[in-house]
C-alpha cells in the first residue's frame, strides 16, 4: 500500500465512520452513553478535512494526521485511544515508501499495547481491546505464514469481527458500560465494533485500490 493508496484508504475509513454514526451510537446507547458513533463521525469528519487539505505526502504522515486530529479534536477517551492506533501505525511505517503486512501487523500490535497502557483495559474487559487482540493474533499468524498485505488485512478483519462478537456475553470491566454490570451481558461493545469496521473498511478499500492499479 503506497502513500496514495494509504490516503484513499484512510478517506474510506473516514467516510465509513461518518456513515455508521447512528449504528455505532446505538451499540453504545444500551450500556454506555450513546455517543460512540457521533464521536467517531466527528473525528472522521475533522480527519477527512485535514487529509483532503494535505499536500502529497508519506504513508507515515497520512496516518499521523488522522491520529493527531483525533487526539486534538475529539478529547474524551476515544481521542487518545483511537488516535493511538493511527499514531502507532504511523510510527511503524516511519521511513517506509509502502505499508506492508509486517509493518502494519506490528503497528497494530503496538497500538493495542498503547491502548491497554493508556486505558488500563485487557482482553476480556469488553472493550475495543478485545477486537484488537483477536485481530493482532490473526495478522501475526498471517505474517508468519507469508500472506500478502491484503490477505493479512482480511484475516485481521475477520479476527476483529470474532473479537467483537466475543464481547456480547461479557460483563464490562472498563469503559462506561462496566457500571451496568450484569446488564451489559448480551450487548456488543461499541468500540470493538468500530475496530472491526475499521479493518473491514481498510480491506475493501485496499482491494478496490489494487483493482484500479
Amino acid at each position, binding site marked *: 500500500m503506497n502513500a496514495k493508496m494509504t490516503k484513499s484508504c484512510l478517506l474510506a475509513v473516514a467516510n465509513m465512520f461518518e456513515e455508521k454514526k447512528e449504528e455505532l*451510537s446505538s451499540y453504545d446507547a*444500551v*450500556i*454506555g*452513553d*450513546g*455517543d460512540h458513533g*457521533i*464521536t467517531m463521525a*466527528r473525528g472522521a469528519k475533522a480527519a477527512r478535512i485535514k487529509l483532503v487539505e494535505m499536500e502529497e505526502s508519506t504513508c507515515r504522515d497520512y496516518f499521523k494526521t488522522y491520529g493527531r486530529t483525533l*487526539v*486534538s*479534536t*475529539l*478529547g*474524551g*477517551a*476515544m*481521542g*487518545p*485511544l483511537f488516535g493511538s492506533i493511527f499514531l502507532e501505525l504511523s510510527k511503524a511505517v516511519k521511513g517506509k515508501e509502502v505499508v506492508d503486512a509486517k509493518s502494519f501487523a506490528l503497528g497494530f500490535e503496538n497500538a493495542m499495547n498503547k491502548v491497554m497502557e*493508556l*486505558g*488500563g483495559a485487557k482482553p476480556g474487559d469488553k472493550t475495543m481491546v478485545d477486537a484488537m487482540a483477536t485481530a493482532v493474533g490473526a495478522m501475526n499468524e498471517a505474517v508468519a505464514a507469508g500472506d500478502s498485505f491484503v490477505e493479512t488485512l482480511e484475516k485481521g478483519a475477520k479476527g476483529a469481527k470474532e473479537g467483537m462478537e466475543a464481547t456480547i456475553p461479557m460483563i464490562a470491566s*472498563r*469503559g*462506561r*458500560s*462496566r*457500571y*451496568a*454490570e*450484569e*446488564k451489559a451481558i448480551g450487548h456488543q461493545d461499541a468500540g470493538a465494533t468500530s475496530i472491526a469496521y475499521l479493518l473491514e473498511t481498510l480491506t475493501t478499500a485496499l482491494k478496490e485500490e489494487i483493482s484500479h492499479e
Partner: protein
Amino acid sequence: MSKKFINDPELIVEEMIAGYVHAYQDRLTNLEGSHVILRKDQKKTGKVSVIIGNGSGHEPACIGFVGFNMLDANAYGGMFAAPSPDTLFDAIESTDQGAGICVLISNHAGDVINSKMAIDMAEDDDLVCKSVILYDDIASAPKDQPEERRGTAGTLFNYKITGSFAEEGHDLEAVCKMAEKVRDNTRTLTVATLPGTSPITGIPMFEIADDEVEIGMGVHGEAAAHNMKMDSSKAIAKVMTKKLLEDRPFVAGEKVAVLVNGCGQTTQMEMLIFYNDVREILEAAGIEVIKPAIGNFITTQEMGGIALAFCAMDDEMQKQWEKPTNAPGFAW
C-alpha cells in the same frame, strides 16, 4: 423532537461559552484561541493554581467553579467528552503563577488519559505539575479498589476546599495533599428517577421504568447496576445514607458536610426535603452535620435524581469549605 433551547448541536459548547463569558465578564474570561475558562483576578505571585478539565453538559460544573477561593481554570471539552491534551496543556500553562499547578482529575477514562498526556507535555516545557485523581462514587467499584471508582458529584468538595486552601498560599505539595485528604474523606452515591436528553441526539440518555429508580447512576447517564422501586424521600434517604455511612465508614462524633446535588430537573423543594431526611438520620447516628451544599451543581442535562455525598472534615477543611467564593456556579 427535543425541546432544548439550542441552535446548531455542533455549536452548543461555543455558544454556551460565549454567553457565559459575557455574563461573568466582571470576573472571568476565556483563554484566547483555546477552550479554557480563567479568572481575571489571577495574581501571578507564586500561588499554586488548581485546575480541572471536564466534558461539557454538566453545567454549572465545571466552568461555574472557576473563581476566587475555588478553581483557577477549567479546561472544557465537547459534550460529555474530556478536553484534549492540548486544551488541558493550555489551562496548565496559562495559570502558571510560578508555584506549580495542581491538576485535579475526576476519574473517568477520558479525563485520566488526556490529563496524563497534557501533564507529559507540560513537564516537557518545565512546568511543575502534580495531578490528583478524584474518586468518590461508591457504586462503581468495591471499597478495596478505590482507584477504580469514578469521580462524581462529591468532587465538588475538592474544588471548593482545595481551591480555598491554595488561595492561602500553600505550596504545591501541601495543596495536593489537601486534595487527597478531601478525596479520601468523601463518598457519593447517585439515584436517578428520569433520564436527561442528549442535546446532540435529541433522545433520552437511558430508559427507566415508571415506578423505579436507579441507584448508582453515573454523571453521563451510564446505566446503573441496581434498580429499586420508587419510594418516599425518607426511604430513599435511608437506603443511600446507610450505604455511604458504611463505606468509609463515617462514625459518631465526626463532622460531616452533606452535598445534595440535583442532577438537573429535581426541584429545590425536593432537595430540601431530602436533605432534611438525611440530616435527621446523620444526627441520630451521632454525626455533627455542618454547612451543606444543596443545589444543581454537577448535572447530567435535565436528568431527574439526586447525588448524595458526604465529606468528613477537620477544622482546617471546614474553614476552607465555608469560605465565600465568587465562582458563578457555587457563590455562597
